[in-house]
C-alpha cells in the first residue's frame, strides 16, 4: 500500500485508506525522536526544499526536523531572504528549485491553491504546508494521530471545532480528515466567523458552545487571528472569550476523557485560558511532538520509494 500521488496537496485528495497508512507509518517513526541518536539513514541523499512564503515557526521547524531525522538535506527558503522578495514570480522560483534537482518541495503560501499550481509545474513532489484559508493537511493528520493515540480510535467520535472557521485552513483540513474516518464534527463560533455552506463539508453548525460542549470527545480551539481584528468580525476579544473561550468552568463540564486541542500558537486568555491550556486533558504539546513523527511518515511515503515492484 502506497500513497497514490507524488504530492500531498490536501486531505480532500486522500482517501481513508491513505490517511490510515500515514497514521500507521507515523507510529513507527515516533520512537526515533526519543533516541539519543535521533536519526535514521532512510532518506540519505534526498533533498527537500522548504519554501515558506508566509511566516511560520512550528510547521517549518517540524518539517525541517522530520527531514533531518531521516537524513535528508533540508534547505529553507523564506520570502524575505530570497529572490521572491526581488519580485520573482512563483513559476520561476519553482523552475529554479527544480533545476537544482530537489526531490520534494514543502510549501506554505498565503494564496489558496498555490501548491496545486506548483505541483503541476514541477516533476518533484509538493507538500502543502498551508495555503491561504484552504488546507493544512499535515496539521490535520497530526491532530488525527494525537486523537487516535489518546482515545484509541477516530470513528464515532464527536469533535467540536471552535472559533474562526472562516479563515482557518486547519478547520477545513480537520473537518475533511475527521469525517473521512467516520467522526462527527460540529463547528461552533460567532456567525460572522462561520462561512455560508460549511455544512456541505459534512459537519454540523452551532452558534452556542455551551449546548454542544457536553457531548464532545474532543474540543478543538482555533487561534483567533488577532492580525485580522481590524476587520471587526466580532465586537471585542473579551466578548469572544466570554462566549467561545475555553475556561475552567467549561472544561469542568466536558466528558471525563475528553481531549482539549489547539493548533498553536495559543492566545492564552482569548480562545483558551492559561489554566485550561495546562490541564492534563490538554494535548497541545503532544500535537507538536507527534507533528514530527507524522511529517517523517509523509516524507518517507512520498520520496522513500522507487519505481518497480
Amino acid at each position, binding site marked *: 500500500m502506497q500513497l497514490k500521488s507524488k504530492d500531498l496537496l490536501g486531505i480532500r485528495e486522500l482517501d481513508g485508506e491513505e490517511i490510515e497508512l500515514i497514521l500507521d507509518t507515523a507510529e513507527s517513526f515516533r*520512537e526515533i525522536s526519543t533516541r539519543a*541518536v535521533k536519526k*535514521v*539513514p532512510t532518506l540519505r541523499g534526498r533533498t527537500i526544499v522548504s519554501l515558506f512564503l508566509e511566516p511560520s515557526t512550528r510547521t517549518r521547524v517540524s518539517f525541517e526536523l522530520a527531514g533531518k531525522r531521516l537524513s535528508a538535506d533540508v534547505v529553507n527558503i523564506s520570502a524575505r531572504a530570497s529572490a521572491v522578495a526581488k519580485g520573482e514570480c512563483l513559476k520561476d522560483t519553482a523552475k529554479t528549485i527544480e533545476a537544482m534537482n530537489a526531490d520534494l518541495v514543502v510549501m506554505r503560501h498565503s494564496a489558496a491553491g498555490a501548491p496545486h499550481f506548483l505541483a503541476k509545474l514541477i516533476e518533484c513532489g509538493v507538500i502543502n504546508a498551508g495555503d491561504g484559508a484552504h488546507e493544512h493537511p499535515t496539521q490535520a493528520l497530526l491532530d488525527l494521530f494525537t486523537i487516535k493515540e489518546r482515545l484509541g480510535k477516530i470513528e464515532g467520535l464527536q469533535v467540536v471545532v471552535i472559533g474562526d472557521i472562516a479563515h482557518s485552513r486547519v478547520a477545513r483540513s480537520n473537518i475533511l480528515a475527521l469525517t473521512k474516518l467516520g467522526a462527527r464534527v460540529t463547528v461552533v463560533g460567532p456567525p460572522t466567523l462561520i462561512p455560508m455552506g460549511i455544512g456541505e463539508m459534512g459537519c454540523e453548525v452551532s452558534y452556542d458552545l455551551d449546548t454542544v460542549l457536553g457531548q464532545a470527545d474532543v474540543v478543538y480551539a482555533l487561534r483567533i487571528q488577532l492580525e485580522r481584528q481590524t476587520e471587526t468580525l466580532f465586537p471585542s476579544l473579551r466578548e469572544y472569550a466570554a462566549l467561545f473561550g475555553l475556561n475552567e468552568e467549561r472544561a469542568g463540564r466536558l466528558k471525563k476523557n475528553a481531549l482539549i486541542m489547539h493548533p498553536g500558537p495559543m492566545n492564552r486568555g482569548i480562545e483558551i485560558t492559561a489554566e485550561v491550556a495546562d490541564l492534563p486533558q490538554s494535548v497541545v504539546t503532544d500535537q507538536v511532538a507527534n507533528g514530527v513523527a507524522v511529517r517523517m511518515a509523509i516524507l518517507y511515503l512520498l520520496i522513500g520509494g*522507487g519505481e518497480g515492484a
Partner: protein
Amino acid sequence: MAFKEKTTIMDRGAIQRALTRIAHEIVERSGGAENLALVGIRSRGVHLASRLARKIGEIEGITPPLGALDITFYRDDIGTRPQPKASVTEITFDVTGKDIILVDDVLYTGRSVRAAMDAIFDLGRPTTIQLAVMIDRGHRELPVRADFVGKNIPTSQREEVRVNLEEEDGIDAVILGEEVT
C-alpha cells in the same frame, strides 16, 4: 506471484529441538546469561528471540532482556522499489556494553543483518553482536555468517524458504517452495 509448496523441512518438534540446542549453545559460548540481550528482527525473528529468551531463562535462571527491531528505515534498497510497510522498534534496555544475540528466521543475502547492525549501533555500542537464525539457505551477498544455525538448507535462488511460526501463522513449520507466476 503465488507460493507453491514443495516440502516441509522442519516440523514443530524439529523447530523446538533446534531452539533448545541454540539456547544451550548461546549460554555455553557466552559463559552464562548475565550480560546477554536478545534482539529479534521483525516480524518472525521477534517470536524466535522470545522463545530463545524463555529457554535461556529455564536453563540459567536469568531471562535475558528482549527487543524487537524494525529494519525498514535502514534497508539498502530504499528508493529502488515501493516502500515496505514499516513497523515499530521496541528496545527498552540500553544496548551499550551488552552481548547482543541478533535473531532472524532466514539468513539469505545478509542484507537484513547488515541493516540490523546499523540500526543497533544507532542505539548504542554493544560489546558483541552474534547472529542466530533458524535457517541458513546460502547465497550470501555480503561478508556475514551466522553464529548459531537451526538448519542449513542448500537452495536455488528461485526457491523460497518460509518459516511459519505459531504466534504469527498458527503452525510451526519450515517450508521449502517456489514462487510461480
